[in-house]
């Protein structure tokens, strides 16, 4: 059994899974129940400025019969009285000393307002404070949330108001509604933040109702942008997370990062850890299936760590970050081709049509005699399962023409049927950066590029 406990800037929890600041952490009763199920921590739904909510609040994006690949919301921060929240926070923390209880806060951009909320949170005995600079709707229009997170100087100023008075760790939660999350992260760290968390939700309109032509969710005939979250945002979150992990200035501060954005399974969790997250926050998956999903998050992560020989979470954190690079440093001579396993292939021909219509036309349909045949070649009088199955051609990759785009691998419905196989290119390893330093003319002269290709034997047809 691996040790899943973490110490996040001094905040300890028995496992890295925290409920994100969101509807699941709206009340003490809910968090009690979550902790009973085994959650390692919870970030209380943001408290602060007085608000009023609307209905409907949540829209969702469904695809291919799968419900809630993403959710979007126009719910604001907690609409429960501040005193009620504070009392319940105190109560939860007293009952669950071993769990991480962090309180998300957002108040008007005034030093005294922030100082006041920090003091009141500290009075509850909470383990940390998360500054919500991410909420993209409702609060941002009032100069809070993402309105702060999008401007590094605001981020730095407000964070410093908090860190000047806070005695417990301060985590700054960043918005993804920016071109780069690095400048606001650097600003928060410069102001003394003890940790970072990301991503908050992404601006979105989730859809339009085709019967009523109303926006989804419909709020009295109107709708507007809301925060987008759930499985569909995971790749965006991983990109933002890794951008912090590879930034030298951010790394110098050595602060932990709490990763979130679409974590639904232990596999997602492991990927966030590998790209630099120390704690993991979960919301949409819980809103879909309830607190009980913590069991497999912990169990699955544990099994994977055991299988890989990782003893502690810190063994895993950032393990794949050194592989994050960019196009300039990729090896132009690395060559992979697709190979279809005919024993596993069910001949759905999805690879064939994807390659032929949209990629590089290097998959052939080959009949039993080894001849390349066109699709739809059967006679109109041919029918029956025997004829259909026994005369069906097999898709085969012409490896010499395969550019290794990997589209066929992605569309194949059978696990392990199409593998990308590394093959020798016969060319010396070279990156774009190296090539263009040596031969800058290839960047703006197709004739020069042609000469280079002929020299090294790169044939594009």
């Amino acid at each position, binding site marked *: 059994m691996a040790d899943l406990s973490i110490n996040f800037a001094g905040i300890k929890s028995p496992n890295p899974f925290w409920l994100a600041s969101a509807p699941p952490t709206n009340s003490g009763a809910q968090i009690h129940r979550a902790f009973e199920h085994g959650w390692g921590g919870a970030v209380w739904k943001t408290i602060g400025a007085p608000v009023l909510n609307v209905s409907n609040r949540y829209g969702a994006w469904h695809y291919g019969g799968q419900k809630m690949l993403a959710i979007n919301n126009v719910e604001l921060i907690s609409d429960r009285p501040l005193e009620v929240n504070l009392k319940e926070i105190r109560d939860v923390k007293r009952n669950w000393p071993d769990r991480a209880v962090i309180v998300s806060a957002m108040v008007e951009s005034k030093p005294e307002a922030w100082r006041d909320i920090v003091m009141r949170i500290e009075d509850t005995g909470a383990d940390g404070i998360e500054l919500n600079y991410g909420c993209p709707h409702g609060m941002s229009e009032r100069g809070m949330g993402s309105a702060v997170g999008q401007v590094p100087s605001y981020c730095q100023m407000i964070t410093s108001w908090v860190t000047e008075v806070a005695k417990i760790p301060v985590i700054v939660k960043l918005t993804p509604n920016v071109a780069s999350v690095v400048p606001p992260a650097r600003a928060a760290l410069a102001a003394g933040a003890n940790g970072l968390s990301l991503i908050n939700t992404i601006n979105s309109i989730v859809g339009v109702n085709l019967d009523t032509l109303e926006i989804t969710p419909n709020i009295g005939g109107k709708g507007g942008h809301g925060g987008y979250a759930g499985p569909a945002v995971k790749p965006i979150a991983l990109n933002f997370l890794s951008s912090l992990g590879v930034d030298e200035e951010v790394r110098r501060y050595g602060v932990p990062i709490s990763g979130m954005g679409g974590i639904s399974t232990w596999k997602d969790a492991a990927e966030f850890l590998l790209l630099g997250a120390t704690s993991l926050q979960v919301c949409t998956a819980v809103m879909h299936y309830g607190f009980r999903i913590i069991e497999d998050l912990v169990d699955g992560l544990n099994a994977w760590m055991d299988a890989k020989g990782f003893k502690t979470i810190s063994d895993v954190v950032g393990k794949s970050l050194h592989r994050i690079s960019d196009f300039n440093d990729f090896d132009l001579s690395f060559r992979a081709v697709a190979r279809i396993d005919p024993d596993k292939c069910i001949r*759905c021909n*999805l690879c064939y049509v994807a390659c032929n219509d949209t990629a590089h036309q290097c998959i052939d349909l080959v009949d039993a005699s080894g001849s390349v045949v066109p699709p739809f070649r059967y006679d109109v009088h041919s029918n*029956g*399962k025997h004829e*259909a199955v026994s005369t*069906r051609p097999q898709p085969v990759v012409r490896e010499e023409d395969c550019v290794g785009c990997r589209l066929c691998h992605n569309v194949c419905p059978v696990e392990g049927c199409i593998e990308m196989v590394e093959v020798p290119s016969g060319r010396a390893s070279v990156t774009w950066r190296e090539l263009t330093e040596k031969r800058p003319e290839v960047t703006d002269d197709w004739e020069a590029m042609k000469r280079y290709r002929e020299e090294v034997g790169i044939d594009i047809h």
Partner: protein
Amino acid sequence: MQIIKPEEVLSEYYPPLTDHEALVEANRCLYCYDAPCTHACPTHIDIPKFIKKIATQNVVGSARTILESNLMGATCARVCPVQELCEGACVLGAEHKPIAIGRLQRYATDYVYERGIDVFKPGPPTGKKVAVIGAGPAGLTCAGELAKLGHSVTVFEKRELPNGLSTYGIIVLREPVEVAQAEAEMVRRLGVEIKTQMELGRNLSWDEVKQAFDAVFLSVGLGGVPMMGIPGEEYILDGLQYIETSKMNPESLKVGHQVVVIGAGNTAVDCATIAKRLGAERVTMVYRRTEREMTAYDFEYSFVKNEGVEFRFLTQPVEVLVENGQVVGLKCVRMALGAPDASGRPAPVPVPGSEFVLPCDQVVKAIGQEKPAVARLLGLETDKGFIKVNQNYETSLPGVFAGGDCIRAKGAASTVMAVQDGKLAAFAIHRNLMAGMGAAADD
């Protein structure tokens, strides 16, 4: 005593898919390219396309996709041996469950019929007139396709209702009469005139037809049940009549306590099912060959076994025993398999001295149908008694085409094959008619 209500015990066996079931099943389809299900379907319905349209909730488009290839799609959805055709070829069949293509096809076609939605319009008039003799699946398909191409089509049908065996010969358990009638109505709304109770050689003369129409399509199906030539045969009920009564007038169908059904094809299975469901204590199917040679589809055979029907293979009836005008038993002789016969199957030969009596009070026979009589009437060339046609479905009489069960000299007769005949014959007739007009053929 339990009161048996025919409309309950014989009602359609499979419930319709709910919207949710259809959506989940449609989303499971991989959307294969040049899909094997489409190849396996004799009418080559673009199955991934119609299923994808269910998944996107474009159900009218889905039905149109089906009906473009197969105008009798609602019947085929119910009666096709899908295990041997589309579903049997599904790429998901090997490791998982194949897609329930038949059920999805029923979902889409029922959707348009229940709402009275027409997915096709008649084509611009060509001025050409075509007669179709027989309003079964082949005839209705041919008529519908020709109407879509702008021809004026009249269908002559000897029965009261159109759609042949779909109406009269398939038990309600598999296909309710209303489904068959909805298909005929759809063809009518394409401008096709269906004249019922008109029979060639009875109240319709061939000369009139030849004179009044530019082309003729014969889709007359087959005849009645052949005679077995055994004593007491006049007491044996005709299986197709048995099914027809169960559909049209079920209250009047008298089912015995101990029923013997002679034959082991799909019609025989359906007769046995009716007898069992309408209260027969014991239903026995007798067949002179073995389980291996029986022509009923596997799923029909499993179905009827689950219904509690018993089987006597290698058993040949030789006499119906009658006392005081009432059947009391069927005398049979045991058979053994000998050398292959003309059909290539081992010929059953009687075992001397093996006679025995199956006690029963009702005997039904479903041992195939007589060859079409119209071939003789019109002097058409035949092939094993079936109407002979060339690859364009044209008979030995120029301008006279034929399709459906009446030409099925090879292979088993089925609705879906009849539909394909009707469709391809319609295209051939269209090419013939338009060739003289200098218009491009449209197939």
